[in-house]
Each structure stands twice: as C-alpha cells, then as structure tokens.
C-alpha cells in the first residue's frame, strides 16, 4: 500500500534520514521505532509532504506521491497526527472531529450560500459520522467538552479521532501513547487494533512505548541515526542484539 524507497533528507549537511526503505501492506500494523533523534518523525514528514525528501521516493498504491503537498496526501487517504498540539484547542471534541470530516462535506461556495436539501443532508450525515468516530475511540462522554479541558489520555484519543474523522486509508500516528500510563496505553492499543480492517486499511506508528508496540504491531521497523537498522516481527526484533545496543548501548567489556 505504502512503499518508501531510498529516502534521504539532508538538513544543512546533516543527514536526518539516510537511505530508508520499507513498506506497509494493506491490513498491517507497522511500527517505526528507534532512539530519540533517529529520524522517525522526519520520515513521517517526508512521506506526508510536510518536508520534501532530498532524494528517494514515496509510493502510495503504486502512485508516485513523492513531495506531494500534505493536504493532497490527506485527500488521497494518508492522514497523520503530530507529536504535539495535534488538536484544535479552542473547539470541543465533537467540533474537532466534525471539522476533520471536512473533505467529505460540501465544499462548493454556491451551495454554501444557497444551501438546499442536499447540503442539509450532507451536514446531518457528517454530524452523525463524527459522533460515531468519537464513540469509536471511546470519548462519547466528553463529546461537547472543550479540547483544552481534556486529560492527556483523552487528548491522545482525540488526536486519533481527528485523524480517523478524515476518513484515511492509511493512518499514521506519531507517538500516540506519549504521556500515557500503562492502563491508558493498553486502552489505546485495544482501540488501535480494532481499527485495522474496519475503519482503516493499515496503520503506521511511531512509538516509544514498547509494550504498545509489541502488542499491536505485525511488523516493526527499527531506525537509528537516520538509517534503517532492521525490520521484522516484534518478537525477533526484541531479541535482536543490534536493536538492544541501539537503545541501551554496548555492554561494558
């Protein structure tokens, strides 16, 4: 579904990402892991068009989408979240997700000024679908609460809800479990697992929480210093000596 080939990104002489290739197949959950600074978020930016790659290519469903603008990627069905401030703070939970459904609603100026039954129908549909997405992530109780009043765990769920609201085929989440305690992370894991095959076709995560990674992923890609170290099933990655070294350092002699 998503294929990344030989991605490079240079920032003023420093290679943030070097020769990274991997793919995400339909129906899969793939996690991108690695120590801080490994270039994971940069990869996200390169894939979704928030930063153009210095070289390499990104293919979605066989189409070359390298360097496409972010909103175009979203319209194609690739939606991502951000590590921080990924919500519209001054809006409620419902409004956030309703806004996320924007691309599926009326975007014609004429019909905005002279709305007929079709537009009213579309709006009604959007509102119901948004409510359903909010329920899917388990935030129904906070439907009309301002995003600024949510707890950390709820904020993370809202971020997922917003991205889901946009109706993605490939959902890319950047550290969805950041700041969550074990319980909240488990809850999130359940939500995420339930999404694949039902609401989205595939999931690509950047995550530090190993428990979550091991629990939800079909495959894990490990990065370090901008390069891809290795990839494989979660169990084999856990035992891979190189990966352990990347996180914990070399054994003292």
């Amino acid at each position, binding site marked *: 579904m998503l294929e990344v080939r030989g991605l490079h990104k240079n920032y003023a002489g420093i290679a943030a990402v070097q020769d990274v290739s991997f793919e995400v197949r339909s129906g899969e959950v793939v996690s991108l892991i690695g120590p801080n600074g490994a270039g994971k978020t940069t990869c996200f930016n390169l894939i*979704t068009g*928030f930063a153009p790659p210095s070289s390499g290519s990104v293919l979605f469903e066989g189409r070359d989408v390298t360097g496409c*603008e*972010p*909103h175009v990627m*979203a*319209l194609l069905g690739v*939606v*991502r*979240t*951000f590590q921080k*401030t*990924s*919500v*519209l*703070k*001054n*809006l*409620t939970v*419902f*409004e956030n997700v*309703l*806004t*996320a459904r*924007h*691309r599926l*609603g*009326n*975007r014609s*100026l004429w019909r*905005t*000024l002279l*709305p007929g039954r079709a*537009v009213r129908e*579309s*709006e009604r549909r*959007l*509102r119901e679908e*948004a*409510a359903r997405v909010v329920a899917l992530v388990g935030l129904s109780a906070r*439907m*009309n609460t301002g995003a600024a009043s949510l707890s950390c765990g709820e904020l993370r769920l809202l971020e997922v809800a*917003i*991205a889901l*609201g*946009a109706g993605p085929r490939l959902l890319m989440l950047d550290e969805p479990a950041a700041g969550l305690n074990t319980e909240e992370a488990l809850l999130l894991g359940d939500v995420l697992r339930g999404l694949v095959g039902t609401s989205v076709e595939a999931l690509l995560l950047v995550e530090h929480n190993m428990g979550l990674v091991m629990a939800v992923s079909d495959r894990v890609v490990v990065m370090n210093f901008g390069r891809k170290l290795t990839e494989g099933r979660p169990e084999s990655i856990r035992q891979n000596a190189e990966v352990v070294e990347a996180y914990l350092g070399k054994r003292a002699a």
Partner: protein
Amino acid sequence: MQFERRFLLIAMGLAALLPFVVRDEYLAHIGVLILFSVTLAASFNLIVGYIGEFPLGHTAFLGVGAYAAAILSTRAGAPIYLTIPIAGLLSAATGLLIGGITLRLRGPFFVIVTLCFAEVLRLVANNWVGLTNGPMGISGVPTPHWIASQPILGQKISFYYIGWVIAALSLYVCYRFVYSNLGRGGVAVRENRFVAQSIGIKPYRYALLTFVIAATLCGFAGGFYAHYISYVGPEVFGFPFTVSMIIMVLLGGKGTLVGPVVGPVVVVLLEEYLRDFQDLRLSIFGLIVMAVVLFLPAGLMGFVARRRETYAPA
C-alpha cells in the same frame, strides 16, 4: 448560532422599519451611513476572523469599487443596478490579485504589504488623470432617475433601502459562510495550519476564498458610496476609512457575526456626537482604539459565544 441569527434578523428587521418613523433628512443620512458601515465592517471582519490579521489595505477594494461605479456611470452611462455588481466583481478580481500575493506572507508582512497595495492604488488614482481625473476626482456620479425625482428625504430613504439590501446581503453571506463546512475549514486553518493540512485542507485556498469574498462585499459598498456621495476622489483609498473599519470591528467584537452591526452603530453615533469637538474627535478615537485593545480586546459583543456546534444524540 441561535442568538446570532435572532440578533441579525431583529436588527435588520428594525432597520427596514426605520424609514417609517424617520422624517428628518439628517437622521436618514445617519441611517445610510450606518448601513454602509455595516457592509464595510462585515467584510473587514471576515478577514480578521478567518485570516486572523487586520488587512490595513482593505480600502483598496472600497476604492476600486467606488471608482468602478463612478467611471462606468459617468463615462458609459451604466445604471446603478449594473454598476454596483460590476464594482463588486472588479473588487473581487483585485482581491484575487492582492490576496494571491499577500496571503503567502506572515502576519506583519501581510498587514504592511496590503497597506502598500492600497497606497499604490491611491497614487494611481491621484496620477492617472485620464482615467480617474487625478486629485480632482470624479464628480457628478449620477443618481438614478427614480431617486432623483423625489424630494430630498425620499432620496435619502431610497438610498437607505439600497444600502439595506447590500448590508443584508453581506451579513447573510457572512452568516452562511461561518456556519458551513467551508467555514469549519476556515476555522481549522486559523486554529492550527498543520492539523488543517493533515486532514486535507489547503490553507492558502481558504485564505484566498475568504479574502475574495470580503473584497467583493467591500466593492459593493464602494459602488454604493459612489452613487450616494456623487463624488469619488483618491482619498477613498486613504487611511481614515481604514481607521473607521478598525474601530468598528474592534469595538463591535472582532470575529463575531454580530460585532459588525453593533460596532458601526456605536461608532457612527459616536462620530456624530463628537462632531462638535472637531479635531479632538480623532484624538479621542485614537484613545478609544488603545483602550479597547488594552481593556476590552473582545469588543462589546465578545461575550457572545463564538460559533459552537453541539451534539445531542437523537
């Protein structure tokens, strides 16, 4: 949503009934001024609310509209029901041009460059004597027959109703835009550009759309102005109009739908009340602007909850 809708309907309803009780030419004139200002404020406020900056060059659209109407009616004899729409169209085109360039810029740059555009237009109006009659301006913009044949009070009231139609149209457009899917997109862009992009919204497109709509409404106001005052000069691009718009929108409540009604009423009445104070009046306005920014940044109607969409399970 409900409050705003009711407020606007009542306000415009009262405005429509006003001529039945007003018998004084001067009061009718004030009424016309207020309606003209409501359109200006609504269009200015659209940009303030959605793009989040104060477009100091907004008079560019007022001036283009005014001159368009003036030139078309004096040179080509076009009637008022053509000149005002065409004025709007030309302002829209100007909006497309100016917005196309300035909307890629960050805050202060956007503000200053729109001001530069307005200044350029003022200089053009001042110097291109062949088209605009230079600093002398275009006078004798014709009043439509059916208006001119009435006594003075009737004339003012006729213009009042034309102004009412334009103001009502502006408020309607703003209301529909705000409470729509497009409006939601605009809010997303204003609140967080990155999130907006990640869900498929192109910020530039929405900014440009808002800008052009605002320019069109301002152009209608300009065309109206030309016919009402019968004279258009380069000063229509000048800063005093901008100052008025700033004060009306700030005082009324920026980014609200009811602010552009409350602000002009207060400001026009204030201006008339202070007319006796002559030059001191403008100094006082400066103080008012500062006071509002410091102590009442949300304006008089700021307490009105911004657009809110709640969900109640059926």
